[in-house]
Structures are given as C-alpha cells and as structure tokens.
C-alpha cells in the first residue's frame, strides 16, 4: 500500500553544464601591435609561437625615396598592411 505521508522529494534542477576550460596560456612574445592576429592564432591553437623579434610594423620600405611594398608597388596594394 502506498505510503501517502511521505512528502515526495522535490525534483532538483539539472546541474548546470561545467564552465568551459579557460584557454591554455601560451608563451607568446609580441614585439609589434600588428602581430595580434598571429598571437590570437597561437593562443587558440595552444602552442608556442616564436615571433620575429625585430620586425618592423607592416612591411613598407623606402626605395629611391618612395614608399613601396615588397613587390616595389605603391602602398595600398593588397599586400600592404602598414598604417605608417
């Protein structure tokens, strides 16, 4: 016979899903602000990334007095990401 004196236990809500593990901290040396994209990629991939330690911002050179990119084109072409 069913015992009706007992109060049924309340249904507990399901335990929340565990919080995602924080991204692993990787050793990244950043020399220039425009290395942020490479650094972000390194952090998501979870591996050390040796950055070129003395690269210049962007890759604009001065040849014969004119600012050009790696292929001797005026800045503004597809390869030029310099802001200077």
């Amino acid at each position, binding site marked *: 016979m069913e015992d009706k004196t007992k109060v049924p236990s309340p249904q507990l809500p399901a335990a929340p899903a565990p919080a995602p593990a924080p991204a692993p901290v990787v050793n990244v040396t950043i020399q220039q602000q425009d290395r942020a994209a*490479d650094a972000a990629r390194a952090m998501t991939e979870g591996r050390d*990334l040796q950055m070129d330690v*003395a690269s210049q911002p962007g*890759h604009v050179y001065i*040849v014969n007095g004119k600012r050009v990119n790696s*292929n001797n084109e005026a800045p503004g072409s597809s390869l030029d990401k310099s802001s200077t």
Partner: protein
Amino acid sequence: MAGPTYGTLSVSDLLAANGQSIAHYGEDRAFEAIQNGLDAHNEIVKEMVSDLCETSMERLTRYGGDAAMEMVALDEYGDPDAQKILPGSNVGFPLRKRGVKIQWTRTFMLTHTPPELANQFLAARDADVRAIRKDIASAFFTPTNNLAYVDALTDRVTLPIRALLNADGAAIPYGPNGETFDGTVHTHYLATATLVAANVSALIETVLEHHATAQVKVYINRAQEAAIRGMANFTAYINPMVTPAYTTTYANGALDMSNLYDRPIGVFDSAEIQVQPWIPAGYLLATDPSAPTKPLRIRTRTGTLDSLGALSIAADHEHYPLRAQTMDREYGIAAMTRWNGAALFAGGGTYVAPVIAG
C-alpha cells in the same frame, strides 16, 4: 743577339719593361702577359665570392612552403578532411653582361710603355671586382622583389627575382623547433632610428630563428665599428702584439691591425662581427656563410665562373689606326636562400634601400 729568356710572362714583366715602347716590346708578348693576369684574377674572384654565393646555371628554383600537416582526433566514424602542403614560391636569377673597353691608337703603341698599358688592364680588373661587390650588396640590401625581370640574354622569359624574406606573402618553412612565420608580415629588412645592442641581437636572432645551428656573421661598415665596440654584448679580438692583463675578457682571435676596413673585430652574442668595405655605411648584414645553402646564387650561362662567366677579352678590333680590347663577364646575382640573411638599417624607423656605390 741576346740569349732566350725563360719563364712565364706575367704583368710584373710588363711593369718592369719600362724603357721601351709597347710596339718594340711586342704586342703579342704584352697581351699574353695580360691574359695570364686575367686568368689569375678570375681564380681570385672565384675564391672571393664562394663564401656567400653558389654558382649555378639554373635560373629558377623554389623556396619556402608550409610543409606541415596536423593529426586530427577521430572517433570510430570520423574521417579527417584532406590536407595538403602549400607550395613554395618561385625564385629567379638574372643573367646580365658587364663590360669595359680599353681603346688606343697605333701611335699610343709606338709611344707608350708596357707599364702604362698594363695599368689600364689592372684598372679594368679592379672595375670587375667592384661590379661584383656592388651586385652582391644589391642582392642583400634591396628589400623589394623584381617580378618582371626579362631574361633578355637567353629567351626573354620573365623571371621573379626575389629579395631576402620581405613579407611578400610567400610561405615560409617552419623553424627548427616548429616555429611558424607569417609570410605576409615576416621581414628580414629591419630598421632602427638609434642603433643599440638590442637591435643587433634582434638582427642575429632573425637569422638564427630559421636555422638553430647557424654560425652567423654580422658584416658592418667601419662607420659602425665604434658603436658596436661600445655595446655590452660585444667582446673584442685583441691586438696580437699586446699581451692582455689576465683579468681582461677578450674573444679568441687576433685583430688585424693594418687592414682596418676588412677584418673581423670580435664577437657579439653568438655571431662574429666583421668590418667589410662593401657594406654601405649605416647598414648591418647578418648571414650564415656556413649554412648548407648559400644566401645568394651567381647564375652564369655555363654554371661556372669560367668561359663567358669569367672576365675575358671579348673582342679584338683591329681597324688601322685604331685598336681596342673589350672585356666582359656574364653573370647575375640574386637571393637564393631567403632566410639566410637579414639587413638592419640604422638610420630611421623604416627600412630605406641604400644607394650602393660601385
């Protein structure tokens, strides 16, 4: 009649024959001596360029590429996506001809001495050495590619002449410890407004990070010698005529006290510092001459610095009363191992290509 004179003709014979005209000395003897001098000069040039340049007849090679794949976690139903290795980029090498002409009249032959003629040819040989040095410096210090070079001496094919790694987007191989480099931002043309030790260390590391067992040499102009000597990371070679105090820290090597513009002067971090006359003032160059592949290639038609690749008499015009001798050499120099060199400009925050005197 005087007895025969035995021995090999050399330029010194010409220089000693000061008391007679060229015509009296004999034009055939004069030019035989000049040719022997040219042969010796060409052997010296081969030795001179062998440190930094590989000699080849190949005009196109490939460099770089992303040569790594990644293992992907799978379950029992899993199937990885296809991966592939990115190809490297084409690297071309030019072929150019440089020449010099010495011309004279019959009257010159009748009235001038063999030493005066010999000096003309010695000056032509010096011009040849300066031209090669200028082309080597240009290959190292020009930061831009020439993707539209037309191989005019062969078949007018367009070749991509490339500089050292210059952030042109070409894929760069992984480093010795798995380091990755972004080809769109990684450059070996560095610049600084004020030359300090950290700049030189960074210059050396720019080469080392691609080849962990490199024996890097840093070539500088004499104008930068004082600044380098004043840096904390530098340890000097000592004057071999002086016994240093036992408390002195010095590098293992003897300092050449006479050849001030062409000598190693000491050690900076892991690299040897050498003063070289062909480095433009205000620039430093790091490279590893002992690497499995040289930083530059000299392209010649035959693959050697002989025949058309040598400084040779190309034309012998005789049109009385005018005579001329044209000498030329066919060669082209460009960067081959694009990681094996890094240039630092010490005059501002943006790399400026130098005007290379020759």
